């Protein structure tokens, strides 16, 4: 009974204040992504370690995607953006591309060493691999563009290609981080939080993918999807804040 009352309250508040909800939702995600990107960029500038750049880029693109999404949704809510127009198509393609490239950069931050092997061992190899790396990055961007275009032509309602690809990509990232986590004797706080963020991201994308099937029978479902997505970024930001603190405490 109480649960159903909460759900009714949530859904009413969501529907009645949709533009404000979208603003708060976008603000939280964009600010969290910006802070994460800034932190990794700072470490990249100091160390030139590419892993920082790739993970930072993932959050740069996620942040841009949700910023764009905000204008896209608000435009539709206020009637400025109508389906079938060129502007709508551009928003659709750009959002799909940005989310996809963000996910691809996230996975690449975990596997880049396999593709740019020598670059972590010497400056000479690093220079050589900088050229090779560029080719890999073009493939990632090309794949993201292809997914966005496929969705535009074959799945314009729900972007199923993007959601399915993201589920694969995030699922793969989760397996990699989980295997790292299991192989470590002392379970680091940052890694635990990262694993939670990836779990939530997977659940979030799955929930988004299933929206069309579940929302008609359980309307408040969409509110939970928003909540899960927000938690991914808050958890990730918390992880980024906690790592230096835990390291400092361990040293003391």
């Amino acid at each position: 009974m109480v649960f159903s009352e909460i759900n009714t309250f949530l859904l009413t508040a969501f529907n009645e204040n949709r533009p404000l909800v979208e603003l708060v939702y976008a603000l939280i995600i964009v600010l969290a992504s910006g802070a994460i990107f800034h932190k990794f960029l700072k470490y990249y500038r100091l160390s030139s370690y590419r892993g920082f750049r790739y993970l930072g880029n993932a959050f740069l693109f996620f942040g841009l995607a949700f910023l764009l999404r905000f204008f896209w949704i608000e435009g539709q809510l206020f009637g400025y953006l109508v389906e079938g127009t060129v502007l709508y198509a551009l928003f659709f393609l750009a959002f799909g591309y940005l989310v996809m490239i963000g996910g691809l950069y996230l996975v690449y931050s975990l596997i880049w060493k396999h593709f740019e092997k020598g670059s972590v061992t010497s400056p000479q190899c690093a220079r050589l691999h900088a050229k090779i790396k560029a080719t890999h990055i073009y493939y990632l961007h090309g794949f993201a563009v292809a997914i966005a275009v496929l969705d535009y032509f074959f799945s314009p309602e729900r972007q199923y290609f993007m959601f399915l690809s993201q589920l694969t990509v995030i699922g793969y990232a989760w397996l990699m981080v989980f295997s790292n986590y299991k192989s470590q004797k002392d379970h680091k706080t940052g890694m635990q939080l990262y694993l939670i963020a990836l779990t939530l991201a997977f659940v979030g994308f799955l929930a988004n993918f299933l929206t069309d099937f579940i929302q008609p029978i359980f309307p408040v479902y969409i509110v939970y999807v928003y909540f899960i997505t927000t938690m991914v970024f808050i958890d990730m930001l918390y992880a980024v804040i906690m790592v230096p603190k835990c390291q400092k405490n361990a040293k003391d």
Partner: protein
Amino acid sequence: MPKKRERLDVIHDILKVIQDNNNSMKPTRLLYASNLSPQMFKDYLDELTQKKFIIELQDGKKKKYYSLTDKGFEFLQKYQEIRSFIENFGL
């Protein structure tokens, strides 16, 4: 077999040696201390100079020596934090 040092570790080791030697070290001594081949050592030294982690100076007898810059000290200070991020996020 000891694990091969990563680029980041080599940079840390070179900077640490200079710092521990009163922030002044001659190239030959630094080469021995770095445990690298002369070619690799040159590559690292070029990179560290280019990135302004170290600076090449001359003493009264016009002999070359290397000192850490502020950025070099910052790298040493943040090294453990950098390592911690790499381990925590599997980078």
